């Protein structure tokens, strides 16, 4: 996706400082003071994680911190909301992965 640099009522966005960060070991550029969710979407990334149990893909849903759908790992801190966390230079962001569900597998095999 691209950015909305000009707007008929809000006007133009002026030059902003750029920072770089990593998402799943790939480097992306973001504007200073923008959220991880906005920066990734601007870079064309919608998928932020997979569901821990089912492995199905997830992205932002509410974008204001209510739903927890955009949870990612930021500098080692798990379950951080991408929509409320501002990108910082050198930040390491990782998507959520599918986790083993040993008990469910045991139940299924009975």
């Amino acid at each position, binding site marked *: *996706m691209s950015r909305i640099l000009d*707007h008929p009522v*809000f006007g133009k966005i002026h030059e902003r400082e750029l920072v770089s960060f990593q998402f799943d070991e790939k480097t992306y550029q973001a504007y200073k003071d923008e959220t991880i969710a906005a920066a990734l979407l601007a870079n064309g990334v919608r998928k*932020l994680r997979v569901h821990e149990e089912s492995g199905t*893909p997830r992205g932002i849903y509410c*974008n*204001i911190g209510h739903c927890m759908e955009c949870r990612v790992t930021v500098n080692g801190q798990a379950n951080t909301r991408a929509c*409320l966390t*501002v990108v910082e230079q050198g930040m390491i962001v990782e998507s959520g992965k599918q986790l083993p569900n040993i008990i469910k597998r045991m139940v299924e095999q009975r």
Partner: protein
Amino acid sequence: MRDVIVIGAGPAGLAGAISCAANGLLVTVLDEFMKPGGRLLGQLHQEPSGEWWNGIKEAERLHQEANKLAVDIRCGISVYNLEQEGHHWHVHTNTGRLTARFVLVATGAAEYPIPVPGWTLPGVMSIGAAQVMTNVHRVQVGKKGIIIGANILAFAILNELQLAGINIDRIVLPEKTPISGKAAEPEEIMKSLLQAAHLAPSPLLRFGGRFMKHDWIRKLGLTFFPKNGVKVNGTPLQLRKAAVEIIGKDQVEGVRVADTDVNGMIIPGSETIYEADFVCIAGGLYPLAELAAVAGCPFQYVPELGGHVPCHSEIMETPLEGLFVAGNITGIESGKIAMAQGNVAGLSIAKQAGKGTGTIDQQLQQAVQNIRNVRQNAAIQFNPEIDKGRKKMKELWKEHYAKGDEKFHKIG
């Protein structure tokens, strides 16, 4: 030590903080978002006068006013619990515990989700999420979108997305299920749009509003509702189409849509797939009231106010000593109402703290009257029966909690 902790830096919280601070109280405002303004940020519409209501500017104005009064505003802080101890409240946050005698809970609203098969796919978002991404973060949410759900909020944000050059292909209803409820009933949608006919987004609805007061005419209107919908700012509103499934592998690729009869029931064999790379779900708003609940505040279900709301008086007190509420947590209305309520809550707190001049009672009375005036002049009304809802809460308060009443029971 601080006197007041305000939770939420939106229109209600900031206005409340300002009127507390103007009366000499020390105030700290907490908010999860990275900048103050709450959901004022992103609001953009043209008033009947032709003037633009720019929420970002309103937020800046309130922020500056609060700064002038030395209000301590802390952003990026999440509150997860409220505890009463003696005459004080402990506010638990992700960065530690804060304490004050008074707490104003101004947490606003959240969106009702409408679970449609496929709604967990990346690219599906609430309509409010699209608003924030577009107007606050200035990032395009996609190239071509479909809105599921037709209500006032959806039309307001449709307009904002179009202003930013985002293409919305169509608005359809969700499939009728026990969860989607009224949002999937073409007649209910028609009725709610007609109640707001003076601001209806389509000339047809504006025109129709005068004639469609009777049920049978409305039914007739739906029977002959154009299959391709009526245009709302150029986007077709299709009341006789329902989203059956959002499809895509790793992200949204389209929506499977079926034709429906006048009751919203799917006509077999009528399914079509419309391509899209994003979908907005518009389920409407409900008061975000968990913090008042964990504090132990009694609640009442008032559908006209948007759902379960903490019991509160006209001057924004709750039955719990030192705990106040303002804004959408008390009922779904506009940002202007939230500001007017915040002002009332602030004056109310100042009065209880023994602050303010001799005219504080008069100021409070005027501020309460101001809420009514703002409501009467509102261009957008989320619930046409809002007055009824407010009246219900007023009577409930009088019956159960008004001072000096023997029936008062402290809960929590």
